[in-house]
């Protein structure tokens, strides 16, 4: 094993550069989002989000150092222990947590609060990776698959108990990791189909049309294929199942979803439904981004975000500031930086010799991807408003630290990839 002071040479500096670029851009945009011309503020002011974010960034540097100093085997060895601890923490949150912004996701430590769910992401990634990397694991084994889904399912349930749907949904991104590690694409396809049916159910005002269409497709399929009893039976059962799903989605939307959740979904379908009420967030967010034009209004020159037209402009809607002040060019740079980072992470993952390290790498890429898709998709009106942060950009200590740890554990593993025996 190499000495600690040699490690800097083997760290992947491309990733570190991308990471630093995103963090610094995020910090500047947080300042722009809350900037008040009349108040004579500086970006360093600790009473402002930008000043505090700088503190968080400094703390992440310490965390990075710690991750690099700690022995690489520590993460795999203690993965299940961490997992157990975080489950306890997540379980405790609804009991002792404090409520911030409608979600009870915070545990107070002094005057600070941390969100255990942010740390649950990398810990679950470690646990999933460890399980996939364990001896005798086979992706085509149903038992193994069940354990994997349980590993991501328990945190989902616990986080959903905190009413933090956005963060809970993040854990579905592991399904992409399973896919990479050999899970049948059938589950993915079913998932995508289910989502399509879900949207269709909401789009079409009368379910009878859907049922009619399904019946027509069924008759068509029966007509063109072989008239065997078994085939017809399978098709009929499939059609019945889909109709059932439609009915249950309809029921779920109208009876299970809370009003604000239902509104968010409905606004996605028709954003003009209520531009001053439910549609406010999306409308204002699009106005802010759309008003940026090609080159943007210039740093601190935006009006929409800093004058609070966009809600949560330094956290979930931070991309609005980029769109407004730096225009399409700025958006292009940010999107490119993210794509570059994610592709680089996949590249790093693929060069790992252990299945543990590789699937951990894919977990990092997929979690980042999920956040990237949902967050930016939400601000430009492609996805419903689901409150999750834009990695490295959004204001907040827990979020920044969570992503920093997630990324740098991979870099640590990558730096020592030569010391690992191939186990694939």
């Amino acid at each position, binding site marked *: 094993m190499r000495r600690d002071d040699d490690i800097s040479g083997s760290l992947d500096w491309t990733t570190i550069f991308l990471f630093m670029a995103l963090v610094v851009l995020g910090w500047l945009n947080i300042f722009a989002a809350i900037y*008040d*011309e*009349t108040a004579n503020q500086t970006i360093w002011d600790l009473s402002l989000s930008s000043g505090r974010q700088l503190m968080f960034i400094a703390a992440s540097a310490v965390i990075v150092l710690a991750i690099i100093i700690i022995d690489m085997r520590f993460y795999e060895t203690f993965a299940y222990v961490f997992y157990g601890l975080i489950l306890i923490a997540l379980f405790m949150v609804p009991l002792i947590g404090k409520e911030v912004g409608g979600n009870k996701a915070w545990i107070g430590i002094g005057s600070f609060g941390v969100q255990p769910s942010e740390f649950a992401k990398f810990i679950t990634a470690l646990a999933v990776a460890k399980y996939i990397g364990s001896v005798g694991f086979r992706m085509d084994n149903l038992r193994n698959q069940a354990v994997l889904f349980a590993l991501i399912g328990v945190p989902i349930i616990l986080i959903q108990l905190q009413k933090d749907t956005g963060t809970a949904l993040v854990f579905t991104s592991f399904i*992409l990791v399973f*896919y*990479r*590690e*050999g899970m049948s694409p059938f589950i993915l396809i079913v998932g995508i189909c289910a989502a399509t049916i879900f949207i269709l159910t909401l789009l079409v005002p009368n379910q009878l049309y859907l049922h009619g269409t399904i019946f027509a497709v069924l008759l068509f399929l029966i007509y063109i294929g072989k008239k065997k009893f078994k085939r017809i039976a399978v098709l009929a059962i499939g059609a019945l199942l889909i109709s059932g799903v439609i009915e249950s989605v309809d029921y779920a939307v109208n009876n299970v979803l809370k009003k604000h959740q239902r509104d968010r979904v409905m606004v996605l379908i028709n954003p003009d439904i209520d531009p*001053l*009420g439910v549609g*406010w967030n999306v409308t*204002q967010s*699009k*106005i*802010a*981004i*759309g*008003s*940026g*034009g*090609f080159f943007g209004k210039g740093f601190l020159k935006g*009006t*929409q975000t*800093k*004058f*609070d*037209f966009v809600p949560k402009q330094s956290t979930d809607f931070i991309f609005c500031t980029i*769109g*407004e002040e730096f*225009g*399409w060019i700025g*958006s*292009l740079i940010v*999107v*490119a930086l*993210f*794509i570059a980072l*994610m*592709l680089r992470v*996949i590249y790093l993952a*693929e060069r790992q010799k252990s299945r543990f390290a590789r699937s951990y790498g*894919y977990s990092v*890429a*997929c979690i980042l*991807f999920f956040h*990237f*898709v949902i967050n*930016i*998709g939400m601000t*430009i009106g*492609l996805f419903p408003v689901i409150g999750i942060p834009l990695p490295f950009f959004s204001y907040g200590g827990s979020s920044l630290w969570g992503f920093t740890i997630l990324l740098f554990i991979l870099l640590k593993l990558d730096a020592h990839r030569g010391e690992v025996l191939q186990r694939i």
Partner: protein
Amino acid sequence: MNEGRREILQLVFVLVGVIFLIKLFFIQVLDNKYAELADSNAILRQVEYPFRGLISDRNGKLIVYNTPEYDVTVILKDVKNFDSTRFCEVFQISREELRKRFKEMKARKEFSVVKPTLFIDQLSNEDFAKVQDRLDEFPGFYIEARTTRAYTTKALANALGYVSEISKDKLTNDKDKIYRQGDYIGQSGIESFYEEQLRGKRGVRFKLRNVKGVEKGSFKNGAYDTLSIPGQDLIASIDLDLQQYGEMLMRGKSGSIAAIEPSTGEVLALVSGPSYDPTLLTGKNYSSNFMLISNDSMKPLFNRPLMAQYRPGSIFKIAQAMSALQEGVITPETRFRCDKSLIGCHAGHDNQDLRGAIANSCNPYFFNVLRKMLNKNVSSSPFEDTRIGLKEWNKHIHSFGFGKNLGIDLPNEKDGLIPTPEYYDRAYNNRPWKFSNIYSIAIGEGENLVVPIQMANFAATIANRGYYYIPHLIKSVGKDNKPLPQYTERHYTTIDSAYFRVAVDAMQQVVDFGTGQYRAHLADVVVCGKTGTVQNDPLPAHSVFIAFAPRDNPKIAIAVYVEDAGQGARAAASIASLMIEKYLYGKTKRQFIEDYVLAGKFLDKVQ
């Protein structure tokens, strides 16, 4: 088995990025709508309302000024811990009222929870003082200030007019786009006539604002801003003391007083009875008060000195006399017998000369005078002859300002009526007419109509011995210290100045020895006047009096109309003489006359 899956994931990542960039390109570069929406979000076009010009009287006493008034607005999103009981107590509204206001507010089309919405409008200064300190107990509620008109006196309401929100009609007819919905505009009287001078020029400031409407500095450092220019102040020719005195005298009566300074045409007093309190038409009860006033059967909004049309009666004989002298058909020494077979008359005189005929208001005399004017035998046809004569007569009578509105600086001035040949053609349906058909105009009856301000102007014209200035209420606009140009031009009658001596003599005789001797005669000054009694069957006649004083170098000319009050020698003569006294000496020495006027029992058999 896992071949190609890495590539699939990489492809998905890149694809999503590309989709985002395409979507971003659409909303950021291709679609301009968002930029416009952003501007309307964040750039507040703030109109800076100028102060409306002040109005003061000829002695510098303030009549109309501006007073701040306050609107309470609410941003519903900012309302926290709303204590409705305390709110009702502080703003002094009932619970039902509060509930109603919330309901109405939310029902409004432009309502938004994040923008300030009008909640209570037009708090007075006193009400504002009460709530000011306690406003911080109600987060989300804000105060916005603007100004409204205020008056130092209840007098002069009809002449001043009022200011209220611009109507839809006016807004659509506003070609120059000066006004916007919700703007205030002068609706009648001086406020309307001098709207252009009073309103000033609005400024516009472009401000940046945040989502709560809170201002966040100027847009582009004020490069597009313009400053507001306050309205011009007006000095009225009205003597406020005289005006108030006139209104007091007219209390409980229907009619008008118009007093003019003959040497300038400045209106000293313009009383319309009954009147109303101008304060009623400002502030938050404007609409309900307006309904109340406009539905009053006594018509307080009807500005009688300008709008009420009466037959001129005997006073018109002076104009006839002047015209006949100018035409040369009579001389001051011409005498006619009081032949009651021609036209009815009252007893006590016979075979008068012109002065006597005016002083005694002899009807047959003026029957003869008009016949001589209209039938000069220039044509063999009596019809054609009358037509030619009437045309000449028209020319003279019109030159006194009759038959057409004078052009006073107030809206809605009526024309009155002086019949022309064309008028009679229409009236007789193009059948022929001659003197015998129309002779009743000789004594101011028949088709003639005049408005009180024309009669006051007539008195001023006689006082000036042959010319007048168009009566006007504003003697100075802004810093010019001049009235509008049309009010500095002399209008000469077609009558030679020398003939007016006859009229002046006769009018002095009326006051010294004739019908005016009991109530219009003043000890210290020679008053020249003429009574008129305008038949108004079956109701009592209207009492009319015109006068000027002093006889030489006159300071005031006046016309008084008191409706349904009988003889001109009683109500109108008393009021006119009291006004003259008040203007010349500041008070009356004849308390009994004032008491008589205030008592208002003009129809009783007293002497």
